[in-house]
């Protein structure tokens, strides 16, 4: 048997029991590698449960900077007997199994084509600690210590991280470091090195390690959001909680200590979006964050926002659907539900961040767009981006950047006698002017309604008036095309008639898949969609290619459907590549699917 031998390029997966305190130990492991200058992507794969069910933590170590999931596991840290068989099966041939060897296991519980590394963790804990909770918690720290020895992780780095983690609770530092050494010493005295190794590098640079939900929350603070109304739902809850934390930090009036924000945990998602719409109607920037089930509940209000033209921002942190679906697993399956939310003819701009850096930027942008377009803007995160820490370039903000409030008529405008028609298209871009309530004693008042009305906001059921208004809304949507983030194109090293379209959290795995395909001599041009309505570049890209793969994380190819519907292309040209088992898509999956489909299609280029 030949063992896998890799430096700074392997996958470690931790199989744990939920609620056993493994999360912070595993996080310590990932961050220590990062501090050694080696890029890391860490993903939680967790159950909808507080205690007892299986949970996994997958760490991709990649000096070359591949931050998507690769597929396969080189070192499995199997700490959960419930999932032992499945976890063992996932290990690459020649890979490694790390396990608690306290209790002897029969030979048939192992595999012949992997290398087994046993450390008697339970026995060590039982000998060192008497308190059951301590036995459990320190077991995790002991295995991190053992792994640090096996993988050659710098102990000084880990010790420093422990110091940072328990800052203010200093009495916890020494026992944790002691436990780390316990594991480390055991390996030094009893085991040989394995073929996987971490070596110091300088590939992390000034990048930061942060969750997309936190990044989006911070973007909302910078974007000027003052009102947040939300209802707890996985995987969006941490966005509202991060917003609360950042507001306390950045939005507390330094003189009075009072809040320059208002956060309401509403009674449900309907009330959440209602509060957002009321606040935005009254001139405050407001948002809610939710997931698919919440979007379903909000749709009536989204229709009101569309038709009465009231700004709103919704962060949809997508999870596995339909219905309750897989609440703690990731998908990109709300694309159509968001794009066409509500009854009647409606469509709404969507933003597709690919990683936390874009979550920050697009969150701030969403508030400008909502005010500019006077409609609901959806920011489409997913669980993979939202709840995992990703390596991303530092957040940037240009001082002096102004908040764009859009077309708002002021007291002075009204006083100067400007004609105010709330739904009057004065500039030809479909966007009318609005007034905030209370602006002027006798001008600019109007009645906002979800019923049909004329350009001066008077109730009307006349067909022609209704049609004019609906056409104006289409003009406004056309204007949105140039305001949402433009797609980003990356061409293959050689001219090709094959293309791929993708978006969101698929991005890092797709970039790696393109490299794999290039190495096989398969060339594919790539276009990353970042906003809806689609820029003309999307249609142009499809026209340039004979076949275009559309890679997404849902069953039905929702982005593909949206492109077919909105861009008007031959559906046969758009080849779906769909991954939807709830785990983040992998580079191997994408490369495998595209390679198979390219091979199956006898086109001139494939024969070259």
């Amino acid at each position, binding site marked *: 048997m030949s063992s896998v031998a890799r430096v700074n390029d392997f996958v470690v997966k931790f199989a744990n029991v939920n609620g056993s305190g493994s999360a912070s130990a595993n996080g310590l492991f990932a961050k220590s590698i990062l501090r050694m200058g080696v890029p890391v992507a860490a993903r939680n794969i967790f159950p909808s449960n507080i205690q007892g069910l299986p949970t996994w933590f997958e760490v991709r170590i990649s000096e070359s900077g591949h931050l998507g999931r690769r597929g396969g596991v080189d070192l499995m840290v199997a700490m959960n007997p419930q999932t032992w068989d499945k976890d063992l099966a996932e290990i690459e041939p020649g890979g490694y199994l790390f396990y608690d060897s306290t209790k002897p296991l029969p030979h048939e519980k192992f595999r012949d084509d992997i290398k087994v590394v046993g450390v008697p963790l339970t026995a060590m804990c039982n000998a060192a600690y008497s308190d059951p909770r301590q036995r459990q918690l320190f077991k995790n720290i002991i295995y991190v210590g053992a792994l640090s020895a096996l993988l050659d992780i710098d102990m000084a780095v880990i010790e420093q991280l422990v110091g940072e983690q328990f800052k203010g609770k200093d009495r916890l530092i020494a026992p944790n470091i002691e436990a780390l050494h316990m594991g480390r010493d055991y390996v030094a005295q009893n085991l040989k090195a394995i073929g996987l190794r971490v070596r110091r590098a300088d590939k992390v640079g000034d990048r930061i390690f942060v969750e997309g939900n936190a990044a989006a929350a*911070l973007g909302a603070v910078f974007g000027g959001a*003052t009102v947040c109304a939300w209802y707890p739902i996985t995987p969006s809850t941490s966005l509202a909680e991060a917003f609360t934390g950042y507001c306390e930090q950045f939005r507390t009036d330094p003189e009075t200590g009072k809040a320059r924000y208002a956060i309401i945990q509403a009674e449900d998602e*309907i009330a959440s979006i209602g509060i957002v719409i009321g606040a935005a*109607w009254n001139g405050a920037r407001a948002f809610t964050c939710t997931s698919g089930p919440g979007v379903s509940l909000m749709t009536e209000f989204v229709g009101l926002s569309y038709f009465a033209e009231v700004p709103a921002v919704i962060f949809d942190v997508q999870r596995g659907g339909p219905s309750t679906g897989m609440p703690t697993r990731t998908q990109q399956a709300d694309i159509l539900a968001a794009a066409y939310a509500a009854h009647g003819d409606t469509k709404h701009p969507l933003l597709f961040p690919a990683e936390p850096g874009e979550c920050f930027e697009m969150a701030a942008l969403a508030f400008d767009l909502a005010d500019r377009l006077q409609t609901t803007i959806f920011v489409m995160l997913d669980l993979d981006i939202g709840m995992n820490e990703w390596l991303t370039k530092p957040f940037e903000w*240009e001082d002096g950047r102004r908040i764009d409030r859009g077309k708002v008529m002021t007291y002075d405008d009204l006083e100067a006698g400007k004609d105010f028609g709330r739904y009057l298209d004065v500039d030809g871009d479909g966007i009318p002017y609005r007034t905030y*309530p*209370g602006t002027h*004693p006798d001008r600019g008042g109007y009645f906002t309604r979800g019923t049909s009305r004329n350009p001066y906001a008077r109730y009307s059921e006349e067909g022609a008036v209704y049609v004019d208004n609906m056409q104006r809304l289409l003009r406004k949507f056309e204007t949105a095309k140039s305001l949402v983030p433009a797609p980003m194109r990356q061409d293959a090293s050689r001219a090709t008639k094959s293309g791929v379209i993708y978006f969101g959290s698929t991005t890092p795995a797709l970039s790696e898949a393109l490299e794999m395909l290039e190495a096989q001599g398969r060339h594919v041009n790539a276009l990353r969609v970042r906003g809806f309505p689609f820029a003309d570049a999307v249609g142009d890209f499809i026209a340039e290619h004979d076949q275009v793969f559309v890679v997404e994380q849902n069953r039905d190819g929702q982005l593909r459907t949206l492109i077919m519907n909105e861009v008007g292309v031959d559906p046969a040209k758009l080849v779906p590549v769909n991954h939807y088992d709830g785990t983040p898509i992998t580079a191997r999956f994408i490369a495998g699917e595209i390679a198979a489909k390219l091979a199956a299609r006898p086109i001139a280029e494939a024969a070259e």
Partner: protein
Amino acid sequence: MTYIAKPRMHHPKLASNSLGFTRRDYEGAVSTLCAGCGHDSISASIIRACYELELPPHRIAKLSGIGCSSKTPDYFLGNSHGFNTVHGRMPSVLTGANLANKELIYLGVSGDGDSASIGLGQFAHCIRRGVNMVYIVENNGVYGLTKGQFSATSDYGSKSKRGVVNHDSAVDLVSLALQLGASFVARSFSGDKRQLTPLIKAALSHNGAAFIDCISPCVQFNNHVGSTKSFDYVREHNEAVNRLDIIPPRAPITIDHAPGTLEMVTQHDGSVLALRKLDAQYDPSDRAAALAFLQQRQALGEVVTGLLFVDPTPKDLHDHLDTVARPLNALTDAELTPGAAALAELNASLR
């Protein structure tokens, strides 16, 4: 409804209030409700209350849901911003609007379908949050726009126009509002303007969640024998516990009264509520007693009206959230955006 638009002209001697506004300046579009509808009387009381309180019309925001009652904000305060939201969801929109600008006066108008059926949840939660507002339910016990179905406030045993007897228990919004912590709770009757107008004035002067349940008979679908929300029925069973006069802040107090029959309550804004007791035992400062009183009298078939509870110095949602004095919608870019230096510091903490 009438098809004749009201002329803009009015009598040259029509009185103005201190802001220079006449009563006409508080009116809105011509009502499209049925002739004789109780809701139009409530609109008239709102107009009168705002005129007499000398409120600048544009500083009032009026919000409603869907239904006959929710159409009425179009028919008063024509210079105010209005928002006809979605069915049963006015409370959340009003809450959001209030969060954005605490300086405006918020008037929520709803019906019994809007607030007791589809919107019961939102009704409850905006009351329990203590949103500073006046929330009026124009309660006719029936779905008017869809032609005569029972609503959730229809009394058990009452009969529909088609002769169907209601076998569901009624939702009593007044009891709910009391239980949920509303700091001003009243019930009135659209046929009693003398009672209703001062109640609306007092509610508008109140600095917290003020709720008025106003029974407002539906002349088309719920004004027949067997209905418990008809003009005749309510007149016969109306038991007012008190009569209210409201005295604006700093105005001289001159009220004639027999000793022991008058109670004076000073509200946060300095306005004084002068309550003439009609029921000697009734104490509108005792929430628990009010609840018990209502239950007892309702069991006897009485429709208890008047100012049922008031806490003159309530805390509102902004107090709970401890927001800055300036409205959130008026904060400057500098107050909202932390800036590049703060961001650099934050970046450093994420490595």
